[in-house]
């Protein structure tokens, strides 16, 4: 087994699962009914993507683990998702700003992964990129509506942007696993996505009359399993049933 290959795919799954879990917290609590359904749809897209990636990673590993073992059977330090995915939702502006910043990244990432030399990963990417295109349309739309909306919605968006901006740099700072996978034609060097991401985000923020925050500090550690204080609580909720009743089935 190629450990880097397994880890790379598993991390992609971690980003999808953790962000999907966060978004699902809005189910039943969104500002209005139509938005509630749309947000839950996005959460389900991400969790569905996590299932495919975990199943693929488990097959690469070949140790008899399955998607559930990877989702429910690992501890905080074994998850390699970006910190931005695990941050609390905050208000609706904060959720949508975070979503937009990640959607731009994911859309570019999965577009490129469609050409992966790992045929299984390329097939998953082919499905994911269509979902990403829609997620991006929705979140990009909301960023402009709220950013260029009322004084209050603008202020909330700017505050959210200032809050999560420092967590975006991590998406582009790859490690040895990313480098090895990019060199093998399986994965993408995250740094190669940075310039286009920045251009696209800055253009959209200008439309939304929002200011790009200063890059004076940034947080990282997700890839290495060094998470924020919010991750443990998220996993406790996500994994509770399987931890309390291991192997339990519906």
């Amino acid at each position, binding site marked *: 087994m190629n450990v880097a290959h397994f880890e790379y795919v598993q991390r992609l799954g971690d980003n999808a699962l953790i962000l999907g879990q966060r978004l699902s917290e809005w189910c039943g609590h969104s500002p209005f*009914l*139509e938005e509630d*359904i*749309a947000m839950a749809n996005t959460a389900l897209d991400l969790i569905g993507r996590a299932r495919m990636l975990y199943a693929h990673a488990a097959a690469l590993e070949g140790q008899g683990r399955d998607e559930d073992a990877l989702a429910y059977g690992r501890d905080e330090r074994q998850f390699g998702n970006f910190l931005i995915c695990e941050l609390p939702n905050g208000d609706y502006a904060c959720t949508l700003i975070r979503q937009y910043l990640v959607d731009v990244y994911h859309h570019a990432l999965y577009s490129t992964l469609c050409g992966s030399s790992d045929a299984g990963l390329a097939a998953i990417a082919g499905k994911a990129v269509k979902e990403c295109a829609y997620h991006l*349309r*929705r979140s990009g*739309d909301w960023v402009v*509506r709220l950013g260029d909306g009322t004084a209050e919605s603008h202020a909330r968006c700017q505050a959210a942007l200032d809050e999560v901006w420092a967590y975006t740099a991590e998406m582009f700072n790859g490690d040895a696993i990313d480098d090895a996978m990019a060199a093998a034609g399986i994965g993408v060097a995250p740094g190669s996505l940075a310039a286009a991401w920045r251009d696209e985000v800055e253009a959209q923020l200008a439309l939304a009359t929002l200011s790009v925050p200063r890059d004076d500090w940034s947080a990282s550690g997700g890839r290495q399993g060094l998470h924020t204080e919010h991750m443990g609580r998220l996993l406790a909720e996500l994994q509770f049933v399987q931890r309390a009743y291991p192997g339990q089935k519906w």
Partner: protein
Amino acid sequence: MSSKHLPLWEVFIRSRRGLDHKHIGSLHAADAAQAMQSARDTYTRRQEGVSIWVVRSSDIHASQFEDDSAFFDPAADKVYRHPTFYDVPEELKL
């Protein structure tokens, strides 16, 4: 949260190519673009459609219940308006 509702929109979905758009429900949205996205998320999440129309409900003019007797009852006794009084030649395939 605002207690004021966004404008109401009617949603029409075409379930398959070759079929007509059918009214499927309504939703609230700020404008057509948002109505289209909400319609996609609310009404096509189980592969119900291949095409969506959204129309502002206020742009629909509906017949009124009190007009029913004048509008619809007179057609009730005019069976000759149905194309059932012709002899169709054997050779004609319908």
